[in-house]
């Protein structure tokens, strides 16, 4: 028998980034006893890395903005595969969620008349992102953390969940371990909110930290929830590329919002050469118009650098492949050029983009006020995730909720910058509210001790094997394989090879062995994270095989065009009765006539 400690909650929240904390605060406000489990320390989740801002149609800088424009921008950015009800709720509720942060102590940058300042970002028609320099995510997570710790919430820092437990059809809690001491813990709960973020660690070049192994998606999948839109993986166009140790670290889109331009090795602003028809009307025709847009000229249209992330990333890949890249396989991002336009440009850049200045200076010996940065795409965000009800955020499993990056629906085929932080707040709140409500209305739960024991024994197996290879090599090989075959540019034959490779990796993962003991043992932790990585990687590859067209973040070299037949459905991934992964198509949810009309008007 393996020993474990038991905790009882009405609502268990897994993950303590923006969505998890917001859900916990709301569930607690709804009277629930709330526990939060987080793989890291409080305040270190990936939310802290978000730089640019929170998208919300406050209309403080341009009063033509309102929720309808934000809704239409989000749908257009997602190539209309978004769940329209989620996009509507998000656009309507984001402003209230931002103001609420201010009431909890967040200090955003201000307009001249003292209101919350908003900045331009890719795909947003008007300046819409509430921000704090380029460290908005830190401001947001700290505000939620500092507010949250006074709401009577139990926080279990440095704990990882291994499996969800069910009582009949409903979710009944989760079982996991304390990373510091290696002890097992059972969390019995009437409702569970998944807020585990993304899957970045399935790729070699990523802006995500070690935590982002797709745990929430994998946990949900294994208890019968449905995953959706798994083929849509966002590669942020601007990650650092040099030196090797910083490859993948994010360079905020805010650099382009402040007037930064992308150039190839010939000095050409290559994005002017390739503007998608859907955005032709909204894009500047010459560099001067683009510059005026970034400086707030309301009559100007946005520069092509602020087109959606999927498009910009693909254009960068093309420039590099065709031999017009920078020395280390990227392109140039230049903000220093604005000294031609502004007196005091260096000071201005340091003020608007302090952490970018710091990051390049310290890690790459580049002074961004004087010279261009070298940048290239980095795996950044997962549009796909757990399929949820738009209003309640509940998955197909009763009592199991999901919010933020690990849920699917809001972003469709491509996410707009800034829509992630607002997603966390809007749907974190909704998930917390409905989870508390669910817990109140339903009775208590029972969990099977046998299941718990079995999970504990499985987790300890890597210590018992003496001959297997270590977990790091399996993880590295998986990352390299996904980068090459399930990356930005995909092909049917390579995707099928990826499935074979994943089967082989699964065999290796089942045989990894680890040394040392259970106390703070990263080798053991890495071994246990492999299961989630393998599950989500397979789901991405299978969904990518199914979508034989190119749309949003999903680009198929063998089907390079958009195919309208594929605009009518989302791709679902489920666990079949035989344990095999099943792929299905689900018709796109119907849009209300009111929303339909908004989209027509904004075309």
């Amino acid at each position, binding site marked *: 028998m393996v020993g474990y400690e038991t905790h009882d909650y009405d609502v268990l929240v897994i993950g303590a980034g923006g969505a998890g904390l917001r859900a916990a605060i709301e569930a607690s406000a709804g009277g629930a006893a709330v526990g939060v489990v987080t793989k890291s320390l409080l*305040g270190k989740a990936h939310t802290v890395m978000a730089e640019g801002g929170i998208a919300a149609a406050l209309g403080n800088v341009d009063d033509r903005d309102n929720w309808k424009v934000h809704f239409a921008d989000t749908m257009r950015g997602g190539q209309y595969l978004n769940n329209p009800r989620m996009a509507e709720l998000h656009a309507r509720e984001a402003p209230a969620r931002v103001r609420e942060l201010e009431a909890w102590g967040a200090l955003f940058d201000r307009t001249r008349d003292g209101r919350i300042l908003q900045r331009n970002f890719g795909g947003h028609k008007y300046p819409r992102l509430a921000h704090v320099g380029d460290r908005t995510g830190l401001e947001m997570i700290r505000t939620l953390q500092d507010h949250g*710790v006074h709401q009577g919430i139990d926080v279990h820092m440095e704990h990882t969940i291994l499996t969800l437990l069910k009582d009949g059809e409903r979710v009944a809690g989760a079982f996991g371990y304390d990373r510091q001491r290696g002890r097992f813990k059972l969390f019995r709960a009437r409702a569970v909110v998944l807020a585990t973020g993304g899957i970045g660690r399935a790729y070699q070049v990523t802006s995500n930290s070690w935590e982002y192994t797709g745990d929430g998606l994998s946990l949900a999948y294994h208890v019968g929830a449905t995953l959706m839109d798994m083929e849509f993986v966002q590669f942020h166009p601007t990650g650092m590329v040099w030196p090797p*140790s910083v490859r993948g670290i994010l360079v905020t889109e805010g650099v382009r919002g402040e007037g930064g331009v992308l150039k190839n090795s010939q000095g050409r602003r290559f994005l002017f050469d390739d503007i998608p028809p859907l955005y032709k009307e909204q894009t500047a025709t010459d560099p001067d118009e683009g510059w005026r847009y970034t400086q707030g000229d309301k009559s100007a249209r946005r520069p092509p650098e602020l087109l959606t992330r999927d498009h910009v990333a693909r254009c960068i890949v093309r420039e590099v492949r065709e031999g017009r890249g920078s020395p280390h396989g990227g392109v140039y991002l230049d903000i220093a050029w604005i000294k031609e336009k502004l007196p005091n440009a260096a000071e201005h850049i340091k003020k608007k983009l302090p952490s970018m200045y710091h990051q390049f200076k310290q890690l790459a010996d580049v002074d961004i006020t004087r010279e261009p940065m070298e940048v290239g795409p980095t795996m950044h965000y997962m549009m796909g995730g757990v399929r949820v009800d738009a209003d309640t955020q509940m998955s197909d499993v009763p009592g199991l909720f999901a919010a933020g990056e690990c849920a699917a629906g809001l972003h469709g085929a491509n996410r707009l910058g800034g829509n992630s932080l607002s997603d966390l707040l809007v749907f974190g709140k909704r998930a917390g509210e409905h989870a508390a409500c669910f817990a109140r209305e339903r009775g208590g739960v029972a969990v099977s001790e046998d299941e718990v024991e079995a999970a504990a024994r499985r987790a300890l197996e890597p210590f018992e094997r003496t001959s297997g290879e270590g977990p790091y090599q399996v993880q590295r090989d998986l990352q390299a394989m996904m980068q090459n075959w399930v990356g930005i540019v995909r092909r049917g034959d390579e995707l099928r090879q990826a499935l074979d490779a994943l089967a082989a990796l699964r065999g290796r993962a089942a045989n990894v062995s680890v040394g040392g003991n259970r106390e703070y043992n990263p080798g053991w932790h890495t071994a246990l994270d492999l299961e989630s990585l393998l599950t989500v990687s397979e789901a991405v590859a299978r969904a990518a095989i199914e979508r034989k067209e190119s749309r949003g973040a999903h680009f198929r070299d063998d089907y390079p065009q958009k195919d309208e037949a594929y605009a009518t459905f989302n791709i679902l991934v489920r666990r079949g009765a035989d344990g095999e992964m099943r792929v299905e198509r689900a018709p796109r949810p119907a849009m209300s006539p009111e929303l339909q009309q908004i989209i027509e008007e904004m075309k």
Partner: protein
Amino acid sequence: MATAKFRIWRGDARSGKFQDYTVEISAGMVVLDAVHEIQATQAQDLGVRWNCKAGKCGSCSAEINGHPRLMCMTRLSQLPLEQPVTIEPMRAFPLVKDLVTDVSWNFRVKEKIRPFRPRPADAADGTWRMDQSDVDRVQEFRKCIECFLCQDVCHVLREHHLHEQFIGPRILVHSAALEMHPLDTENRLGDLKRTQGIGYCNITKCCTKVCPEEIKITDNAIIPLKERVVDEFYDPLTRLFRVFR
């Protein structure tokens, strides 16, 4: 390929010792890269805490060649590589294992600080108006990434272990951010004087020197708080006034 030697503390609260590792080094490498390389190839169970690897989350604090630093922001090119690079856990906190310390005390202390309490909204729609210059002052403190290096280096905590009487520079910065917040109406000066030990700080500025965010902890946060405490409790005119009231 060039190599470098690393001397890393291995052990737990019971016992431990330095162990040497040799790592191949490449351009631009930081200390955390070397630790990861050792983990992947030589010591799978080497305990280290990290997240963003870009100086934004404050997880990978350690003492490198005796200096409190973030491992992700310390480049090997800044260190003398003729001799081994020593990497030790922070000393002001109990050791969990290897480079990982138990920093939970910081979270517990922070929870005791009176929370933000805003004045009523300025506008009918429930929003406030603030001037950028008022916001700037507090934004400096809100840059803090909670790496706790300032706590680690503060002699009141590090040498005198007064964790029960003194909240340390990080939590003083947090208090300053609240006290100077343009909307806040709470008064934390009594707590600072009576239970949080602001008097223990004797302004040696060690905390400021190690702050990776370059927050002027002593000059901009602690000294102004000390002045406010003095004004509130030790101003002779006020005391006289209190006597006759």
